[in-house]
């Protein structure tokens, strides 16, 4: 749409008489959206204010503003939750896995969509079947797998005299193991989305590049990556919050505090029979804040990414 057309349309719109039905429709739309916005924002505001109450005050003043404001909850939650150790891990796991998932999904998606082979169908199908598997069903088998692989490699290296008698760790209780499992568990959806998106890129572009002498990796780097930015953005947006909040897998994969992520630290404040609400709320605010800042900083890109990713040419 050029500038002139835009001006004409605005002019036409300006002359249009406002119909009562339009006003009513807008009012209903604003009301519904307002209610949804309130339902989303109010709990966050309530959580924020409640995090400044002592547990004793919270029990007697659940809905009101704090009477005796205290920062003690934050001090205690930070110390008890050992968030100074966990926050770096969360950043590493989230960003490292997102980069890995996006890169590998695009690479594999390109191969499945544009490189024809008899093996494409079965291999693609074997990846896609992963979408049907739930994390809960994988927890114990994954734990068994990582511990037995570590044990196997450790025994082999010990037999060669390459490692000592201590426990050998490659996948269990290591950051590398967490990253590999996170990337692997998100690949089925990523590959599916990227394959379908890249299928929509005209093959003529790739063929032209091949005629000009470009190899597959050059085509991927120069053409596919550039044209797949919307799906890469969508994939990142989908993965970043879920990786940041991931609990079930990391709970199984690591046991040492210096390898844990924020959700495990926050979970320490979930009591079964007793609840220290003040510290629990402070811990939740600490965990939520980075995601909130991420959304505020990248809200335009997030909105654009979601809408662009939803459309395929």
């Amino acid at each position, binding site marked *: 749409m050029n500038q002139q057309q835009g001006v004409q349309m605005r002019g036409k719109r300006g002359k249009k008489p406002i119909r009562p039905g339009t006003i009513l429709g807008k009012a209903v739309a604003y009301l519904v959206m307002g209610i949804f916005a309130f339902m989303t924002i109010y709990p966050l505001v309530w959580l924020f204010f409640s995090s400044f109450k*002592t*547990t*004793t*005050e919270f*029990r*007697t003043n*659940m809905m009101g503003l704090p009477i005796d404001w*205290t920062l*003690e909850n934050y001090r*205690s*939650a930070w110390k*008890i*939750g050992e968030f100074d150790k966990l926050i770096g891990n969360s950043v590493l796991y989230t960003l490292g896995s997102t980069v890995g998932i996006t890169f590998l999904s695009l690479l594999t998606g390109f191969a499945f969509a544009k490189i024809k082979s008899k093996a494409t169908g079965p291999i693609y199908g074997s990846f896609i079947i992963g979408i049907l598997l739930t994390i809960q069903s994988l*927890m*114990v088998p994954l*734990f*068994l797998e990582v*511990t*037995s692989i570590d044990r196997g490699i450790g025994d082999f290296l010990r037999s060669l005299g390459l490692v000592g008698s201590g426990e050998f760790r490659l996948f269990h209780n290591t950051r590398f193991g967490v990253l590999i499992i996170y990337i692997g568990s998100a690949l089925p959806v990523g590959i599916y989305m990227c394959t379908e998106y890249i299928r929509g890129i005209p093959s003529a572009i790739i063929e032209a590049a091949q005629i000009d002498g470009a190899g597959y990796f050059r085509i991927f780097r120069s053409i596919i990556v550039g044209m797949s930015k919307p799906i890469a953005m969508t994939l990142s947006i989908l993965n970043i919050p879920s990786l940041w909040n991931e*609990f*079930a897998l990391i*709970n*199984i994969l690591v*046991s*040492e505090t210096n390898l844990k992520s924020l959700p495990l630290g926050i*979970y*320490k*404040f*979930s*009591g*079964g*029979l*007793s*609840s*220290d*609400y003040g*510290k*629990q709320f402070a*811990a939740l605010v600490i965990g939520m804040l980075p995601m909130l800042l991420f959304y505020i900083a990248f809200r335009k890109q997030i909105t654009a990414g979601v809408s662009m990713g939803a459309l395929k040419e």
Partner: protein
Amino acid sequence: MKKKICSALMFLVILSMGAYAQKTTLTVFDYIDATAPGYAENEAIWQRFIDENPDITIVKEELSNEPFHQKLAAYVAAGTLPDVMYMYPSGRSTMLHEQKLVKDLAPLLGKDYLANFIPSVTDPSGQKGKYLAELPQSISYTTVMFTNTKLLSDLGLRVPSTYAELKAMLPKLKAKGIRPVLMANKDDWVMQSCLFSTIVGRMLGDEWIDNALAGKVKFTDKEFIKALDFVETMYKDGVIGRDTIQISYGEAPALFAEGKAAFFIDGDWRQNAFLTDPSSGKALIDPKRQQTDFEYFNFPAIPGEKNPGVASAVLGCGYGISASIPAGSDKEKAAVRLLKYLYSADVQRQYLELGRYITSRKDVKSDKLEPFTVKMAAYHDAVKKTCYVLDGALDTSIYTPLNLGLQQIGLGTKTPTQVAQSVQAAVDAWRASH
């Protein structure tokens, strides 16, 4: 000069021996959450053991609720159990007991050491595997009637000794807008664990439950339906309001502390909700009022009870030692040293002062306890006979429909007979799979 050289050499030898002394590493899997009373103090207790035992390295992992059980299941499946772990006397730790994955603590701790504990916690028959797989830190009494005696005396009422007396209080209490009995029934386990277990214990007894699990009697028999009927009666009479189904576990203590109910039924652990919070110095009920205005009582006598005065109780959790540790090894000795420290009179006194539980150790005394804790210990002594807590005696697949059914009775959406049928169906399915 020679002496100095000899001393220096000896010092170096001792130093080098220390440097090369083999440190024993113990992996510990502990069940605790940071909202537990005295969490920070508990960390200090563990740190003291680490400081006092430089030859032992503790690698501790803490989890709670479902993730704890999920991870323990993974450890069992992989055959990589931690050296020392927190466990239940039955229930969710059944596989540890039945597969004998943990050691018998009786020979490891010794008769003299175990003599410091109340006999029922060291009795192996109380545990699933019929051996001392874990040493219970306490006995949990799951039915305690927290009573606002000042409120009652202000209204000219006395603590009821029978259900009929409790019911007779209703007009006076309701006229003042006061709830008779408060329970946090939004959580479905509360009614089953904190009241219905006692009702079943009084009307039927533990033997009846054993027979039901053995298939000799059925939950659809009229005896069990009568117990469910009593729950329905309490709702219909208004002794327990139907709106308690909307009261969450977190909000109930504040309602009771504010004098909005004459009685509050919960487990003994709930006393810690009212104690002074060490971080803020505030208490839901200050120690002075704890002393003068409140008491604990057993639930009054109920119509048709065969076992008067019985209250539900369950052996508490404790620590066990992995069976994979070689007998007589340094690791086994280190694990035993850790357990003896954790169950020492000094550590148990600290846990008692923090309001975590009423310790099973007999020789623990403290003058720093708040009145609610002192009174809870007295309540334990006052209850002479105990019965099963149903969620400790029944499989999860059986008590889940029971918990739900008790809520449905409260809501009036199911009859006692219908609930009994759903429980029996669960028992049939459980028996078929065993």
